[in-house]
């Protein structure tokens, strides 16, 4: 690569297609903020980005220990990106524990930026380096390029004129790192300066301190001659348009609001705080001017049942939770199914069972969503494939719930919830309309609450509608009238009608497409949910290497798109990678009688593209 405009011979500028940086430090080091600031700045610059925050469940785990290490992985590039990167090019470590926990994630020969103050005797011992051996000086990092900076000291130095205490000064050392990286990758500091001004509004001394340290980090890169190279990552050739950065949970919240606006209905959100779903509640609670009624309920059961009550009255009732919280909602899901009212249930999946791994990602609740209720209680299930797709699928969830008078499951996960990427957001006029089957006037004297239209959908008659008083409930109801019925023939009929209504939603969703490859390929990789990016990347590389591989990604899981079976039967082999013990694979085997094989992983971490590639090659050879 041609070095451009180098300031000195020592400071060459190299161009890179994409770079993965992993920021790691104590959970109190401001790692998430540093990572998200670098992401936003890179996105504003025009790079494609994909991020993956990885943090402990404890708010402040013991300082200096491996358990307390928080990480933020960011992949940014001048090409289209679909994952936060398998291994990183730059590993930023604020202490010894962060290095120990993450060294295996760094490519050989690449760069470590280490805060040398985090490698004192105490930190080394907390991180478990035997006899206080310092990896920065004992030669064990010989395969990497190590840049040691005493960030703590330099930060304090930059703030020596201020009245802040040492503890407060040390809190801004993440800004030093950020400033240094901005220098290294030729980034402007303005977006972060603006962020600091907003975040610390009313605290001028903190604004001043953080900006001073940010600049100190930048200038340290500029003036110190330790470093030989600056890198340039040019804007990515993304489709033209206006972009913003979006995180999965935020996209869900905005998608829900947009859908309710398009349906002309108020949004009721009943929820109980739980990781990693709470950010949806936080986001929605900020938008009351969209007639959003957010209700923090006393428990998970009240969260969903309050949403059912709101739906009965004509709002779009929505609730969200994660693993154990979803388990608590099971009974109410059956009620919603029986009542045939709109309801959206979002499961931001996390590692299970029980409390499991609250901050780690997993896809092990698919069978629970599709089958996990007493009785025959079919519920449509859909799943977004990326943070920005969370918007579209949240919109879809509301559309299906309202137009088909049914509860709908939206299966997100921790990886999508906290991951971010650029989003070419739509205009409100580009969004489809949603037509609620609300009946406002009694059409005729023999109107009945469970009369169905040609799609098997009943009408939504809200309390307050004159002359249409009726009772609904969880007991089996007589076809049409909705009165209690224990008649055997009627029960058979009603179970069939409810199942049929959900099955017919397949007529109102898009046909399944093949994401990459030919429909006659030797191997089809079938995926769902957040694994999309890693698999897309892997299949792209495999195909570039001449392998006959195709990729199908399902966003609709119940019912499946109508052509799914036909598509799957056309492939030689089918591999189904999932972050569980094999759930979609069971469904497609039983539904379509195809010999699909599982590829499973339950480590609380997403697949890497490399893992998918290796398994695909093995499958092709077998």
């Amino acid at each position: 690569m041609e070095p451009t405009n180098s300031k000195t011979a020592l400071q060459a500028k190299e161009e890179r297609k994409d770079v993965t940086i992993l920021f790691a430090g104590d959970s109190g080091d401001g790692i998430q903020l540093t990572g998200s600031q670098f992401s936003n700045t890179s996105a504003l610059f025009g790079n494609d980005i994909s991020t993956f925050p990885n943090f402990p469940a404890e708010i402040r785990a013991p300082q200096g220990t491996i358990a307390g290490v928080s990480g933020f992985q960011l992949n940014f590039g001048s090409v289209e990106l679909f994952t936060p990167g398998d291994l990183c090019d730059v590993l930023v470590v604020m202490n010894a524990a962060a290095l120990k926990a993450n060294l295996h994630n760094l490519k050989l020969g690449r760069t470590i930026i280490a805060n040398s103050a985090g490698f004192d005797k105490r930190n080394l011992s907390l991180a478990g380096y035997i006899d206080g051996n310092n990896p920065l000086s004992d030669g064990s990092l010989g395969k990497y390029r190590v840049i040691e900076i005493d960030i703590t000291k330099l930060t304090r130095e930059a703030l020596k004129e201020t009245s802040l205490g040492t503890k407060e000064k040390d809190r801004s050392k993440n800004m030093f790192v950020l400033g240094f990286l901005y220098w290294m990758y030729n980034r402007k500091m303005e977006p972060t300066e603006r962020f600091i001004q907003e975040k610390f509004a009313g605290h001028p001394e903190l604004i001043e301190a953080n900006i001073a340290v940010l600049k100190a980090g930048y200038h340290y890169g500029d003036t110190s001659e330790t470093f030989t190279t600056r890198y340039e990552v040019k804007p990515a050739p993304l489709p033209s348009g206006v972009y913003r950065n979006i995180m999965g949970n935020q996209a869900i919240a905005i998608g829900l609001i947009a859908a309710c606006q398009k349906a002309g209905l108020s949004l009721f959100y009943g929820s109980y705080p739980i990781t990693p779903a709470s950010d949806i509640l936080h986001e929605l609670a900020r938008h009351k001017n969209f007639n959003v009624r957010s209700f923090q309920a006393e428990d998970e059961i009240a969260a969903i049942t309050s949403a059912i009550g709101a739906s009965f009255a004509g709002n779009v009732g929505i609730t969200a939770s994660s693993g154990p919280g979803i388990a608590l909602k099971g009974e109410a899901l059956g009620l919603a199914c029986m009542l045939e009212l709109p309801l959206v249930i979002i499961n931001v999946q996390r590692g299970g069972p029980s409390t499991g791994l609250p901050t780690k990602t997993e896809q092990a609740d698919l069978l629970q969503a599709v089958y996990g209720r007493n009785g025959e209680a079919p519920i449509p299930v859909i799943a977004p494939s990326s943070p920005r797709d969370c918007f579209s699928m949240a919109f879809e969830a509301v559309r299906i719930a309202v137009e088909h008078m049914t509860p709908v499951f939206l299966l997100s996960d921790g990886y999508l919830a906290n991951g971010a990427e650029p989003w070419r957001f739509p205009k409100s006029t580009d969004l489809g309309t949603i037509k609620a089957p609300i009946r406002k006037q009694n059409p005729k004297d023999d109107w009945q609450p469970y009369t169905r239209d040609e799609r098997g959908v009943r009408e939504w008659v809200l309390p307050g509608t004159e002359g249409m008083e009726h009772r609904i409930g969880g007991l089996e109801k007589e076809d049409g009238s909705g009165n209690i019925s224990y008649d055997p023939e009627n029960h058979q009929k009603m179970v069939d009608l409810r199942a049929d209504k959900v099955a017919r939603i397949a007529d109102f969703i898009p046909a399944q497409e093949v994401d990459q490859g030919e429909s006659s390929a030797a191997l089809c990789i079938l995926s769902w949910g957040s694994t999309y990016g890693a698999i897309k990347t892997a299949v792209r590389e495999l195909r570039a290497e001449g392998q006959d591989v195709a990729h199908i990604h399902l966003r609709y899981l119940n019912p499946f798109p109508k052509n799914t079976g036909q598509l799957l039967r056309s492939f030689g082999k089918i591999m189904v990678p999932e972050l569980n013990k094999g759930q979609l694979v069971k469904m497609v085997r039983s539904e379509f009688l195809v010999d699909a094989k599982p590829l499973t992983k339950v480590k609380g971490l997403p697949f890497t593209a490399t893992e998918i590639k290796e398994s695909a090659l093995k499958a092709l050879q077998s």
Partner: protein
Amino acid sequence: MSTNTENKLTAKDFSSDQDVRWCPGCGDYSILKQVQTILPELGLKREEIVFISGIGCSSRFPYYLNTFGMHSIHGRAPSIASGLKVANPNLSVWVITGDGDALSIGGNHLIHLLRRNFDMNVLLFNNEIYGLTKGQYSPTSPEGKVTKSTPMGSVDHPFNPLALAAGADSTFIARAMDRDPVHLREILLEASRHKGTSLLEIYQNCNVFNDGAFSPFTDKQSKADNTIFLEHGKPCVYGKDGNKGLKLDGAQPVVVDLSSGDNSLEDLWVHDKYDRFKSGVLMRCFDTPMPDRESLPRPFGVFYQEDRPCYEDLLQEQIQVSVQRKGQGDLDKLLKGTNTWEIA
């Protein structure tokens, strides 16, 4: 809510076409009749009224009323009603529940409903037994109660539902009984007029699994001496000939004999339903009447009432303030966010 003065509805207008299917002789019949009788007094249209119930014998109630209704799942009626009221604050909402539904499986929802103070009415049918599951003890069954699940007698200490409601800062706390329809109607009307969550406990006889649980308070012979009917601003008098009264000795309620000449009406405790402390003392008048010793009478009527803002009104206010501050939600602005960039 609009008031409807012309073509006043009658109790019959509130009966649905469904056959009532409680056991013959069940106390629920009386409660249904009294509710149907008072509903026309509310001046509302049928469609403006919603009854939400949980599970249990009492929870069949909504099916028998020609209003909107939902027979939901066990214990969850309060939270369903909460969502309903948030979504449409103009509805008149009634929660129908029992001692098992409200105080056992749904105990959490009940206390949170009370503290939030949604404007609705909770009718808690207390029969001190699980009827629908055929006779197990309930959270209000007295200690020692022999039932199918407690052949040696219950060792559970029972709830005092009204004291529980007070603990949850309920803004309207009252008690009535199935066997005194006139009083029940009066209290139902008072409950319905209260702005906030009104909790009305109704003693209801389960003549199949717990017959006579409340007979000391409901039977002709014993009622007068074992009960006191509270009236706001009136002295606490009771007894066959109005010959007994309640006095407060410090924080202790004391029974006095008005016929002995030692005490007159002026000496008695005057009921003040706005007095949190004294109403608490009345809620604790929870003795089981014994033939061999004098016990405190069981109070009926409105124990306590206070004015406190309702959740749904506060939420509506926040929505209005949010609209005032930020303007009516602009979807394009929301989609756009605060930081955008353009790729040509």
